[in-house]
């Protein structure tokens, strides 16, 4: 049953919201308008500001500017609890449930129906939860414990919780990223049920075919700002992709690529069940290969498997023609592989240690004399690399936590460069660092390649990918979807391959 949403008054309006974190302006002009009974898509590239907008609706962030209207009245949401009270519920990609409690208790925790004497009415609670699932058309047992539920079922539990709270605005933040096709279909049925009951659903997804399948209107964001809001009918996928990308390419280009040398890293048919399938790639000496794709497409997982952090089920990883032992970072390091992880604070650095100790961390074996680490040698090594990478610091003995994000990233790079790696894997090397340092990191990567290091770079920023890399591999849902040379690639093509808009033969 189709309604004419145009005639309905918006249930939620966000007008010209802005939000910055320090020097980074995550949201410049975020606007969205939701009408009862519609499924409204929000699309944009990684970093376009969608997540910030969602967190403002969820009451997690408070906007620096702009206004939020629910039912035409201006509201200020100071906390997630206030957002819920205003009727806004957010379903995250990976919900956080209580694994030891039953599904029904997860829905009603703190609000369980009571018997006289303030005792919990367990039967009523189970029955109410069962009724909610019945209306959603999902056969989920409310009495089982939440441990072991699939991600899809966990989302259903969260949706059930939203309904039990009478939420009328349901925000789904990339709900389908981890779901199978059958689970996506079931979620769509739930979305339809929510719509026909008059709820507004804000649906965030990278998969454009899902936007066309389930949504009535779509809002496109780019660089933290609203681009347009239009009915989905009459739009083509190309229109959306163009609107999402449509930015001028930055002028800076790396120098000519050095002639690639021998193949240093060879990955053949690497497979980890349910995560990535049949990934084959080669990185030559002096070459920068980018691994592009959407967040969740399996890029980081492939890199972790190559470096031996995670297991893989099939395939081989070889460095200079010799197979690496599986699941052994030590073996990978011995073969000359370095790995700069995505999350430098958690995985790249020991925040409590000094700049000097962090730089020396991967080179302790070389610094050791008679089983003792010589402080003087450690300091020499750290000074050397700090100068080469232009790390800005107070003293080498200061805690690394005192450095800026960009300089922290340089410390992680220095740690691996001090080992003189043959292959360097960098995962999101410039995430969250300022523009000037970003350019320095790009130049550093190019210079390393010119010195003969093979670099595998994972990046979600297409301008970065196009600027730095010699070859671009695009992953989509755990598989390699396309390959381009730098001369061939455009942002539109990479985005289309990453979102699956066109089948691209390898």
């Amino acid at each position: 049953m189709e309604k004419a949403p145009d005639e309905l008054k918006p249930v939620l309006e966000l007008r010209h919201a802005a939000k910055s974190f320090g020097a980074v302006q995550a949201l410049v002009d975020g606007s969205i308008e939701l009408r009862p009974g519609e499924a409204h898509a929000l699309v944009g590239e990684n970093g376009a500001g969608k997540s910030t907008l969602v967190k403002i609706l969820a009451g997690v962030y408070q906007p620096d500017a702009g206004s939020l209207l629910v039912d035409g009245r201006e509201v200020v949401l100071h906390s997630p609890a206030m957002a819920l009270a205003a009727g806004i519920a957010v379903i995250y990609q990976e919900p956080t449930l209580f694994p030891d409690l039953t599904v029904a208790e997860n829905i009603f925790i703190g609000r369980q129906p009571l018997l006289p004497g303030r005792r919990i009415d367990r039967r009523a609670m189970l029955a109410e939860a069962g009724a909610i699932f019945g209306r959603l058309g999902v056969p989920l047992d409310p009495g089982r414990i939440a441990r072991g539920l699939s991600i899809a079922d966990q989302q259903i539990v969260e949706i059930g919780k939203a309904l039990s709270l009478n939420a009328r605005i349901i925000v789904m933040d990339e709900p389908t990223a981890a779901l199978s096709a059958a689970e996506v279909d079931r979620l769509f049925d739930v979305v339809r049920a929510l719509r026909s009951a008059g709820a507004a659903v804000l649906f965030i997804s990278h998969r454009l075919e899902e936007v066309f399948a389930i949504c009535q209107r779509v809002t496109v964001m780019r660089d933290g700002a609203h681009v347009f809001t239009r009915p989905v009918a009459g739009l083509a996928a190309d229109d959306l992709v163009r609107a999402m990308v449509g930015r001028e390419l930055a002028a800076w280009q790396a120098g000519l690529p050095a002639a690639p040398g021998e193949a240093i890293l060879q990955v053949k048919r690497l497979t980890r069940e349910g995560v990535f399938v049949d990934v084959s790639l080669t990185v030559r000496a002096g070459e920068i290969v980018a691994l592009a794709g959407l967040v969740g497409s399996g890029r980081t997982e492939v890199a972790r498997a190559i470096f031996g952090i995670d297991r893989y089920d099939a395939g081989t990883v070889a460095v200079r023609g010799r197979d690496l032992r599986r699941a052994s970072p030590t073996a990978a390091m011995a073969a000359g592989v370095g790995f700069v992880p995505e999350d430098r604070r958690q995985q790249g650095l020991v925040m409590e240690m000094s700049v000097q100790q962090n730089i020396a961390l991967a080179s302790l074996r070389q610094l050791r004399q008679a089983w003792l680490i010589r402080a003087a040698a450690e300091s020499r090594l750290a000074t050397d690399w700090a100068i080469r990478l232009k790390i800005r610091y107070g003293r080498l003995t200061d805690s690394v936590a005192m450095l800026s994000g960009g300089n922290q990233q340089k410390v992680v790079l220095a740690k691996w460069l001090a080992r003189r790696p043959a292959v360097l894997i960098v995962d999101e090397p410039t995430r969250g660092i300022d523009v000037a340092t970003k350019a320095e990191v790009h130049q550093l990567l190019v210079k390393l390649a010119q010195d003969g290091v093979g670099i595998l770079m994972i990046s979600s920023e297409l301008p970065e990918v196009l600027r730095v890399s010699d070859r671009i591999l695009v992953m989509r849902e755990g598989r390699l979807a396309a390959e381009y040379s730098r001369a061939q690639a455009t942002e539109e093509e990479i985005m289309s391959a990453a979102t699956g808009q066109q089948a691209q033969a390898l």
Partner: protein
Amino acid sequence: MTDTLLRREPPETPAETGSRRLAERVSRIRESGIIVVLALFVAVTAGVQPRFLSVTNIQFVLVNTTIYALLALGETMVVISRNVDLSVGSVLGMSAYLSASLFGQHHGIPIPVVFLVGLGIGLGWGIVNGLLVAAGRVPSLVVTLATLYIIRGVDILIVGGGMVTANTLPGSFTDIPKDTVGGIPDLAIAVAAVIAAGAYYLRSFRSGRELYAIGSNPGAARLAGITIGGRVFTAFAVSGAIAGVVGVLWAAQYGTVDSTAGTGYELTVVTAVVVGGVAIFGGSGSAVGAALGALLLSTINSALYVLGISDFWDQAIAGFLLLLAITIDRIISVRLTAALRLRSTRRAT
């Protein structure tokens, strides 16, 4: 526009119950497992030494259990919320000495008043623990390890080389552990009732369920608007208060109280709780299970005594049971997760 989805309707009955039955059955297996081990010990010991099943000995074991089972009740509340209270032994010791010495200082002091004093001492220390953990955000392992030593130190300062002896205590007080109804010690009946009440509270009241929620996933508990600090504080206050009351019972049972009373009890209690199936990282377990754990430990203790086996074996067996319980929990949890996951995928496809 139909509005059925957002309005609460008269509930229907849920359809599928297989996974629930599985989860419930497993938790029952966990408790019946303790009973099986218990029965085994009793049977073997009684076979070798029939005196083990004499009325006196059974009464002795039951009364002995009450102390640990009560402490285990408070400890269970704390452990379920992903914390631990290591100060219970020291609290017991201080409460035992201070309350028992009241009889010597104030002749004819009513026994309920003495219990109230013990409760007050325990509650006080429980509040200290609770404040440091909840408001100070210090890990409870560190806080209660510190108060374990502090309370014992203060106790030694107060007691010095002195002790309370049984002849200063009124007969009606030292008879508390000895009174029986139909052969069963009054004390055991009272404690069983308290534990049943505690178990019912944890099962059927919002604040009780919230302790499980906090232990199961603190982050989600915060998002759900549960006042974590308040609930954890209460758990420590209750655990302390129980330890205070148990101190008075301890004095009644043993009669002689010096500065070492209750030393090391915290470890026995934590062992009883874990052997009884309470997850050491919180989120699951029951007060009844913990009480059964306490019963098992004191039965083993008595069995070895009756069989004339060295005390050393008592500790070794307790340690072995702990490892066994943790191993079984680990296996069950892995299997259960796998089984539940299988059910969900089978249904989804």
